[in-house]
């Protein structure tokens, strides 16, 4: 059945106007997780960060693992949607917004973690460059200072990138809503009218943002990798880390995106918008990244193994044969052995299939970060000073809280903003899916809204 602009309007704005009980349950759950984390953090500040399992020499563990993990997840959105915009892949339309939302929120969380993990959180603001009475500025040689700038830029950029296209949708809600909601959205819409000039400027701006955000995203995760690569620590001090981390980040990002889409699809009844084609295309991307990840991992390990430098080999063997071997091989399964067949075989590349693959990838990529950080710190150059690490309940709670916080932000966002860009969907209705004939290569899947529903949707 043909979806008209009117139906799109109703379908996509429904979540904004109607709230189910389930929604509130979910919000309550996420909130409680979040506040558990807040409590744990307060306890840590009160008692001293010694309530964590970190020790000498393992000074970083769960904290930085989660930091890298969330910053990695953030590479889903912006990067994907920006690239798809630039390549004018019209199937992107239902995908971009939920992707960009993931980005903004996970960067936010990623940026919070370092603040929790430092010894004196109340002094975190010393990272900010401002003319302080201490007459001392941040040390721009420090990768942490780079982090500060990169993440600040990325957060700003991706937030703008996310919010610009919402303005017209806010306007739509403003015009259809009444009462308080109307007042709120009147402000949010900034007085958007929809004149051709406004549309033109909006699309130009989005185009520039798309161009600008891609290199920023790349730089962010490169710099995160440099937090490690800049130090003379066995298996950290490696030139491959930049691209390795970026690839890993996009990898985990896409996985997170697929998962989120699968959930939204069910919860917000978007079966007719998020269709198999989207999961298939993203699945193909995920497959590519999985292969790329394996390539990087192999390259990194091979170089170490062949070089056979004693300090590095200690970490090498410890992760693949000794204490960390179980985690390591779980990681290999999660990131490669499981997803590749699922995503490689067309028959398995279903919505469920890609979702399962994404699940394993998210787990696997978390493990990857953990395995980069902890084994190396446990085994630095002087064997006498080696140590071991066990997390405590405080760290576990904080980690759970980071997921809770993510869920919470996402839930609230989906309440105020249609998770699929309404006006962009409508553009998809136009002949050639809104693509100027000259550039209509993506036409065959430009408009995916007619014809019977794929079987995998009805259940």
């Amino acid at each position, binding site marked *: 059945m043909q979806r008209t602009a009117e139906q799109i309007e109703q379908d996509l704005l429904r979540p904004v106007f109607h709230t189910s009980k389930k929604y509130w349950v979910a919000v309550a759950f996420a909130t409680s997780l979040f506040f558990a984390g807040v409590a744990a953090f307060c306890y840590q500040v009160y008692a001293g960060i010694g309530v964590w399992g970190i020790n000498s020499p393992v000074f970083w563990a769960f904290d930085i693992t989660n930091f890298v993990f969330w910053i990695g997840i953030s590479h889903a959105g912006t990067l994907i949607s920006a690239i798809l915009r630039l390549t004018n892949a019209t199937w992107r339309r239902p995908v971009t917004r939920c992707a960009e939302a993931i980005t903004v929120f996970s960067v936010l969380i990623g940026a919070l973690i370092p603040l929790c*993990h430092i*010894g004196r959180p109340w002094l975190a603001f010393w990272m900010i460059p401002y003319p302080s009475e201490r007459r001392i500025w941040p*040390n721009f040689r*420090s*990768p*942490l200072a780079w982090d500060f700038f990169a993440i600040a830029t990325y957060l700003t950029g991706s937030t703008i990138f996310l919010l610009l296209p919402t303005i017209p949708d806010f306007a739509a809600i403003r015009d259809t809503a009444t009462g308080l909601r109307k007042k709120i959205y009147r402000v949010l819409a900034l007085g958007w009218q929809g004149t051709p000039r406004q549309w033109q400027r909006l699309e130009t701006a989005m185009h520039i943002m798309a161009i600008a955000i891609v290199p920023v995203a790349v730089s962010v995760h490169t710099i995160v990798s440099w937090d490690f690569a800049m130090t*003379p620590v066995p298996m950290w001090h490696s030139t491959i880390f930049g691209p390795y981390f970026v690839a890993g980040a996009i990898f985990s990002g896409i996985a997170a995106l697929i998962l989120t889409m699968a959930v939204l699809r069910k919860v917000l009844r978007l079966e007719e918008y998020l269709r198999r084609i989207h999961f298939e295309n993203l699945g193909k991307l995920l497959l590519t990244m999985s292969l790329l990840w394996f390539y990087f991992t192999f390259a990194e390990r091979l170089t170490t193994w062949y070089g056979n430098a004693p300090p590095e080999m200690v970490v090498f063997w410890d992760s693949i044969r000794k204490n960390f071997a179980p985690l390591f091989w779980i990681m290999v399964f999660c990131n490669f052995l499981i997803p590749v067949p699922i995503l490689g075989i067309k028959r398995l590349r279903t919505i469920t299939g890609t979702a399962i693959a994404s699940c394993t990838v998210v787990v696997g990529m978390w493990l990857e970060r953990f395995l980069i950080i902890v084994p190396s710190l446990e085994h*630095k*150059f002087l064997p*006498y000073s080696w140590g071991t690490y066990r997390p405590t309940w405080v760290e576990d709670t904080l980690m759970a809280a980071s997921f809770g916080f993510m869920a919470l932000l996402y839930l609230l966002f989906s309440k105020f903003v249609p998770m699929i860009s309404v006006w962009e969907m409508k553009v998809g209705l136009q002949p050639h899916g809104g693509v100027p004939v000259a550039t209509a290569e993506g036409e065959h899947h430009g408009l995916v809204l007619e014809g019977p529903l794929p079987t995998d949707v009805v259940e």
Partner: protein
Amino acid sequence: MSHKWGMVVDLDRCTGCEACVVACHAENNIPTAGADQAALGRAKHWIRVERYWEGDFPDARIRFQPVLCQQCEQAPCEPVCPTYASYHTPEGLNAQIYNRCIGTRFCANACPYNVRFFNFFNPQWDMPLELQLNPDVSLRTVGVMEKCTFCTQRIKAAEIQAEAEKRDLKDGEFNPACAQSCASKALVFGDLNDPNSEVSRLERSNRGTKLLGELGTKPNVTYLERGTWEDAKNG
């Protein structure tokens, strides 16, 4: 004349008696971690005597190796600090400025010698043990890194004294607590800018090596390898 403080550790003299360890605790107000924290790997020893086994019974041998901050000239710990808390003094020491430190622990990871220590909690002394605390050395609060300072308080005191007396510092006029307590003179401290100081003389020894020298950190601590009876006999 500006100073460049350095130390020579003669592994042939070191007996592993660990007098230096206790001296350091006493001088620098290093809190005792206690059994539980020590079990977690949080015992603090700014100087430690590392021991490595070589061979098996009955040919087992032990190598003692006192390890303290190497006061690197190109210290990996310094550039990574976002707040300039780990700071390179003009006299070549890797200083840690406690009240600048926000506790990112990045320096500790960057240090290949693992000689930087973190205050996981506020230090604590059971009354009246705190009467022993050295008023010349500040206590470190929770969340900051700390490390060997070459007993900078002693350096400063000696320099001020010398200045008051309008003279240069004499070699061996003062020593860090560890070197002071070392009975077999395995630890020798002094000014590397003074070519005639004992430490400079020993540093030029052909037994001299740098700990993890291959990392290019340019330590100001030199290790003198163990000699053998045969070497000595053959001249």
